[in-house]
């Protein structure tokens, strides 16, 4: 039995401890905001926060989540939208949108640790998150807008 918190709620997991967190969130809990993109931690579509750190849930096994606090896009902000989500809307970042949840989770964790990021720091922080539609320049702009909003 693995005990963990997901978006503030206590959960216990009885299944296979090697199951990646992503599939527990999506198939067991029905939290489908976190996306499957590559399964090997190369695209970032599955990014969630584990104890506040941006984490690729597709390569994080359930065994490793025991006692941890997991936050998904569904729990990122209790009231309304997070500043990063608002910035994403303001800059009109998404095209297909599939990767954007992972991008937003990555950006939110990054901005928690970095208040005034440079372009280089943004690119570095976001380089693990792929966007095939090519919204990269808007992602950079939205992170800057969110950083200002959060300052």
């Amino acid at each position, binding site marked *: 039995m693995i005990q963990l918190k997901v978006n503030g*709620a206590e*959960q216990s*997991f*009885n*299944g*296979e401890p090697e*199951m*990646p967190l992503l*599939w527990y969130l*999506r*198939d*067991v*809990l*029905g*939290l*489908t*905001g976190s*996306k*499957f*993109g*590559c*399964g*090997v931690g*190369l*695209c970032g*579509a599955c990014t969630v926060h584990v104890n506040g750190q941006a984490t690729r849930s597709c390569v994080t096994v359930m065994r490793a989540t025991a006692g941890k606090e997991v936050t998904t*896009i*569904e729990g990122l902000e209790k009231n309304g*939208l997070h500043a990063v*989500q608002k910035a*994403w*809307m303001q800059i*009109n*970042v*998404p*095209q*297909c*949108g*599939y*990767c*954007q*949840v992972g991008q*937003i989770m990555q950006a939110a964790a990054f901005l928690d640790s970095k208040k005034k990021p440079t*372009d280089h720091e*943004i*690119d570095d922080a*976001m*380089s*693990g*998150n*792929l*966007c*095939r*539609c*090519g*919204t*990269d*320049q*808007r992602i*950079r702009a939205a992170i800057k807008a969110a950083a200002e909003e959060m300052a």
Partner: protein
Amino acid sequence: MSTIANVSRRRFLTGGVIAAGALVLGVHYYPKLLSGDKLPHDTNADHATLHPSVYLGINPDGTVWIVAHRSEMGTTSRTTLPLVVADELDADWKRVRIEQAIGDKRYGDQNTDGSHSIRSYYDAMREAGATARFMLIQAAAHEWGVPAAECDTDLHVVVHRSTNRSAGYGELASAAAKLPVPDKRELKLKQKSTWRYIGKGEVSYDLEALVSGKAIYGMDARVEGMVYASVERPPVLGGKVKSYDDKDALKVAGVRQTVPIDPFQGAPAFQPLGGVAVIADNTWAAFEGRKKLKISWDNGANETYNSDQYKNELRETSHSPCKVVRNIGDAGAVFAKGGKVYEADYYVPLLAHASMEPVVALAEFKDGKATLWAPTQNPQAAQDIVSKELGIPKEDVICHVTLLGGGFGRKSKPDYVAEAAVLSKKTGRPVKVVWTREDDIKFDYYNAVASMYMKAALGAHGKPTAWLQRSVFPPIPSIFDVNTVYGDPGHLQQGWTDIPYDLSNLRVENGPAKAHVRIGWLRSVANIYHAFAIQCFTDELAHAAGRDPLDYLLDLIGNPRTIDFKGVEYPNYGASMDAYPWETGRLRHVTEMVAEKSGWGKRKHGKGTGVGIAAHRSFLTYVATVVEVEVNDQGEVRIPRVDTVLDAGLVVNPEATRAQFEGAAVFGTSVVRSGEITATKGAINQSNFQDYPVARITEAPYQTNVHIVESDAPPAGVGEPGVPPFVAALCNAIFDATGKRVRDLPITKLGLS
């Protein structure tokens, strides 16, 4: 333990709150189905009080339902087409609700490809809105006893200004519904000056859902009682299972059963590839079980296919005379005279789509009927193939269209939807087939590998006195008939037969190539390799002549004229040549404009930096692009700036259009930097983003500036036309920066990255 509780049958599990405005799937939105109405495909618009069009309905509370019948994969067409309806209706966008159509021929063509959603449906959407507006005005005029001509509309309200009367659309809906639907000749479309939304645009209707994880993609579709499937497919196209052992697979916790899938018959088309499916309680168990399958394959005839050797064969073919598909003058006679000649070979490998959402579909076969939930660009084709595979009438196949996590052409081929349907029939349960990224890359319908041979005889100022171009590529129709080896007019038109240069001697040829993998449409399709060859060859000739590439390009485009395609089979992307003539003046204009916007020849570029230019028309849109690059001593290419100018006629949604061209630059960057699928003994070598990398934020252009030409010409495509000129301009910029000429993509072959 689970947060899912008490979800009723036929409802979607969402795992969260359904966002207002989010794409909501399924049929649970219809609380008031008319008794006796057996249509399985009704929409809220169908059941609205005023319903003069399949695309539109208005309720007494003033809610306007607009049906989006094209698929949404990121181009915003799900928003932009309804916006056209709303404009002609003079509706308040805030009171519009969009619902997604299922696959149904009553909507017309729904194959969301070829960058033609706006072009093909702009008039139909205007008519739908104008029809409802006409009826609302009539209803108000009757009510007030005034001539309809004295009435007008003003944002969701009909007004009679001289008597200061007004009535909301909701109030008028019932009365309007009693009136006859007017003939379209009676309709008066709004004047451009009164447009509220057309030309101004709107952000995606789904924007908030997209940033909050509430948007439902195919990957997120869930129904009660469903199981998950992962399929081990034949590694070589046309291969078959000889035998398999599933003992260990069945031991994996959560695995329920394995199910063989028959190989396709004849040409692959959209049939499942065959193989063995592992059915499980969750996706991961299905993946794990599949790893334990032991399958012995009969690989079939395509086992002899090796992409390296195939490349040589294509090149060899291109060095001998091929089929002539367009001819002007006598290029052969000019070459025979001798003199200065310039030749070059260009090559683009197979390319995979790699949408961020891997291919996925959910299907339920029950009581002789199939219900599908799929991220498909082509729900009617999904109905067709599922109908054939299951042996049931097409009307008994309901295809719900989810949002697509990218499509780029892959998801217009519904083989994966058929897979899910076949498995549901065999297991008696709803089945979701989840493709891994590896499956998505290994079992794609690839953009064709292509070899292009270019030859020019050079005269005064380095201008060509004769031009010969031969392209050789396995054609897309080979998926429907394996013996098809020549390009079809629909793909030869893509930047090949329509070379826009003013040449007295031109010979355009196409050679045969047999396909050994499934070939399909990928964003911009044949335009990618054709524009690469022509626009880079042009740049080579400019440099050979010691001339400025912009100047040389304009010289070849020549004076404004309409291209005469007499004797050429030129389908013009399915549009009439009258409405969409090929006007070189428009190509010239975007080229001149991009030069100005980018500061061509005016900005200084230091060591290791360079600029390149290219111009191309595709999907009826004229585009010119200037790319600026920096290449360091390690051969790392960075793109600080891109300027692109497009003339797509009337642009309904400029914001979405800018986004498409920004994205096209990133897509093109992936093509140039790393796009390459290869095969050994018939099996694809690449598998995931480590060996099929796509551009990351560190590699994508830092800034793409998109400039839209103001035009009243009819609307043309915007999703695809940005890629081809970008690819060529980037390669030309790399030459400018490094002196290395890119003839073989990707640039890793030149030691660049």
